[in-house]
């Protein structure tokens, strides 16, 4: 059984609220007066077509986007969010000159923490958890796209942050690998406050405790869909398939 709770303890996992958000991309107003909440310790999925502003909203939560007043981004425990966020993107964002192991240890090094035997052992165990045991000495060029994304997942886990932001993390891999990575991520990131941005309704419905649809210009966010059953839900789950059909119909309407 893999330890999936953050090692800091469940009490350290806050919910995250975005209030009255306003953001531009160049001269275009992406959204304004937008409210959004990530429930504590569960997965919130944000669905929408390309360019609607999903990634921008994620970047806003991450503190990477320059939002405008009166935007508020806050955690339920009142502490600042900076330093408590792990991030995973569509590209693996691995450094090609580092081995898989050193890529997993990147955050540790950047924080100036000593790379102790314990840290290395932990990184190895995480690589093992994502199914890359024994491959920790390989560089990204020697790994397939799916393997690289698994290294990125291991690095995200190594950060051991209560809040995890994922921007279409599985969209660049083949369908089978995607299902496996989804299961893996659901298992290993359970108990954290996760925001998953995706354009794949099935992915959102398999993984999300709540699924929101973002649409329109400027964008608005729809009410939460709550798929029944614990994630990761089976691909063939009738409730999931029914919701997927409904979502796809609402997109194309």
């Amino acid at each position, binding site marked *: 059984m893999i330890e999936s709770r953050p090692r800091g303890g469940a009490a350290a996992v806050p919910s995250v609220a975005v209030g009255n958000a306003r953001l531009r991309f160049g001269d275009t107003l992406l959204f304004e007066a937008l409210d959004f909440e990530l429930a504590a310790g569960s997965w919130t999925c944000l669905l929408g077509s390309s360019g609607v502003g999903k990634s921008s909203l994620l970047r806003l939560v991450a503190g990477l986007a320059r939002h405008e007043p009166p935007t508020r981004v806050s955690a339920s425990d009142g502490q600042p969010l900076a330093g408590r966020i792990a991030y995973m993107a569509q590209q693996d964002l691995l450094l090609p000159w580092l081995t898989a192991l050193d890529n997993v240890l990147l955050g540790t090094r*950047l924080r100036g923490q000593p790379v102790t035997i314990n840290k290395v052992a932990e990184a190895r165990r995480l690589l093992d958890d994502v199914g890359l045991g024994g491959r920790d000495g390989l560089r990204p*060029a020697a790994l397939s796209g799916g393997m690289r994304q698994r290294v990125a997942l291991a690095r995200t886990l190594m950060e051991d942050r209560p809040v995890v932001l994922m921007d279409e993390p599985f969209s660049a891999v083949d369908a089978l690998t995607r299902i496996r990575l989804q299961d893996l991520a659901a298992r290993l990131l359970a108990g954290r406050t996760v925001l998953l941005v995706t354009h794949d309704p099935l992915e959102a419905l398999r993984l999300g405790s709540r699924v929101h649809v973002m649409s329109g210009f400027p964008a608005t966010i729809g009410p939460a869909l709550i798929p029944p059953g614990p994630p990761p839900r089976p691909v063939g789950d009738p409730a999931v398939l029914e919701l997927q059909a409904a979502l796809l119909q609402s997109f194309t309407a």
Partner: protein
Amino acid sequence: MTPEPDRRTVILRIVVPVAVAAAGLALWEFLVAYYDVPRFVLPAPSAVWTSLVDDFAVLAGSWWLTVRITLEAYFLAVVGGVALAVLFSQSRLVELALFPYAVVLQVTPVVSIAPLVIIWVGLDHADRALLILAWVVAFFPILSNTTFGLRSVDHNLLNLFELYGATRWQVLTRLQLPSALPHLLAGMKISGGLALIGSVVAEFVAGSGTATGLAWRIVEAGNRLNIARMFAALILLSATGILIYLLLDRLEHLVLRRWHESVVRREN
């Protein structure tokens, strides 16, 4: 992959050019003898070889001066180019202020600034003038390639480093410099040849009795109609240029072979 095709390719890559060279030299030797071409117009390859052997002491001394100036100019170009590129990447203001002058230095033909440099360093120190002129020629590819490399870091990776709370120094040393390394090495390959060309051109324009490199020997042999020695000096120059290129190519391969797209072996 089986070793056979590889070995065959290697043999072909060596045997074919050598055979072509041997045939060319034989034809050259034959034509010079057959038409009785005067030595001061076109010496036979055997005469060039004799000159290379007989004048070796003189030529080797000149060769060493040219190589020394080339290496010094190259070293200063790499150090200076990288240092200035890093400075540019850290301060937009410095880049805006200085980059135009780097371009001015680059586009002004080195031949035309040679007399000025000679006046400034003094005729007694012609080797210093050669060094400066060769450096001017070799410097710009390093600067512009490294600047480009430092600037073209994936912005998603910059975001990641920002999220991880990386300091400016960490972003530079752990992200920007390694990302720029392939560009720097490409620039170093261009500059290696240019440093040699620069030191030779500079010597043609600014050479004097106080600095007698290979270019000086070529001019001197030309004036004396000693064409065989001219050819011998030319051969040494070409060989040096090829050697510099091969060494830098090897360096690039060794540094990048583990991770960069340009050298990692692919199945397709």
